[in-house]
């Protein structure tokens, strides 16, 4: 059972892939716009885990040591900005349409 005891980088990569797939399932199958946005955040976190796993994988190289962590920090900041703007759009749309069902939000006007 060394697959459970010997940790490798691939463990983190496969976990990030599973998290990414769960995020895609949430985006495709949920109708509420807020749940869809939370699933998008799940996908961004999956990308962050991948980047950090590779950053630790090549940790002995002093040049590449901090590139992954800086990229993950930028991704977190940009995800915060995107969540703020997306939620503002959701609030504005809800004020006009009075529902948040993305299957019904398919036309620009009514």
């Amino acid at each position, binding site marked *: 059972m060394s697959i459970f005891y010997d*940790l490798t980088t691939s463990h983190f990569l496969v976990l990030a892939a599973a998290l990414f797939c769960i995020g895609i399932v949430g985006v*495709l199958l949920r109708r509420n716009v807020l749940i869809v946005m939370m699933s998008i*955040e799940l996908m961004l*976190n999956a990308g962050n885990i991948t980047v950090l796993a590779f*950053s630790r994988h090549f940790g002995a190289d002093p040049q590449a040591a901090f590139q992954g962590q800086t990229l993950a*920090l930028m991704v977190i900041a940009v995800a915060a900005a995107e969540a*703020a703007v997306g939620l503002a759009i959701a609030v504005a749309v809800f004020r006009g349409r009075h529902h948040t069902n993305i299957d019904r939000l398919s036309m620009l006007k009514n």
Partner: protein
Amino acid sequence: MMRSDFGRAVSASAVVALLAGLWSWLDPSLALASEAGEKMHGFGNSKPVAFLFWMFAAGTLGGSLFVITRRNMVAAVMGMVATFFAIAGLYLMLYASFLAVIQVLVYAGAIMVLFVFVIMILNKEEDEPWALEGLLGKGLAGLSLLYLFVRVGQVLWSVRDQAVDLSKAPLPKLVDLASQSQQAQDALAGGLAYPDKWQRAYEFGSVKGVGYTLFTDYLFPFEAVSLVLLVAVVGAIAIAHPSAKEQKGPEAS
């Protein structure tokens, strides 16, 4: 009925996992430091470290499944917060301590609070969690996602034997200042934080290291991201602000 039982099962397993983690931390026989783990940048093939990984992985996947299956939106947000805490634990295992704290503060502490605010504003009764129309297409989407995960997992799993042999990599050492060259001492006196690139790599994941990198190598992306955040704040206010017609609507009637 089935949904609340699932929620109870998830909560119970989370409590069990937390208690198991607490026990593995307190029990002195399960020392978290192994000989292999004492080496720099080494996971250490020790069972408690692997147990921590599986615990955080279960928390991550369980929390994310909780998010996409809940009908109650506030429950989904709470599941998201649990997912973010588990991901922060994974970041700690990946020697990214600064990122772990930032994850908890920014993602779980700010973005999810924003989601809760918007959920309270959009005070709509919950829809069905799974859309019923087009079930065949969505079943096909689920199957293709499963296939994607299996193939991507195969590729990601196949590289595990090509790991960098960290026992042969030069270990970064703490640098004694007095033994440095005059040039390095001048650089340190001039305010440079790291006289030696290996010392920067030694402090992998620390606040100092990430901050040093952010202000020297990646200064332009840092400033650009601050500009992005400013634009996002202004844009969010501009979008969510009610228009003048809506504001004087009740008085005009």
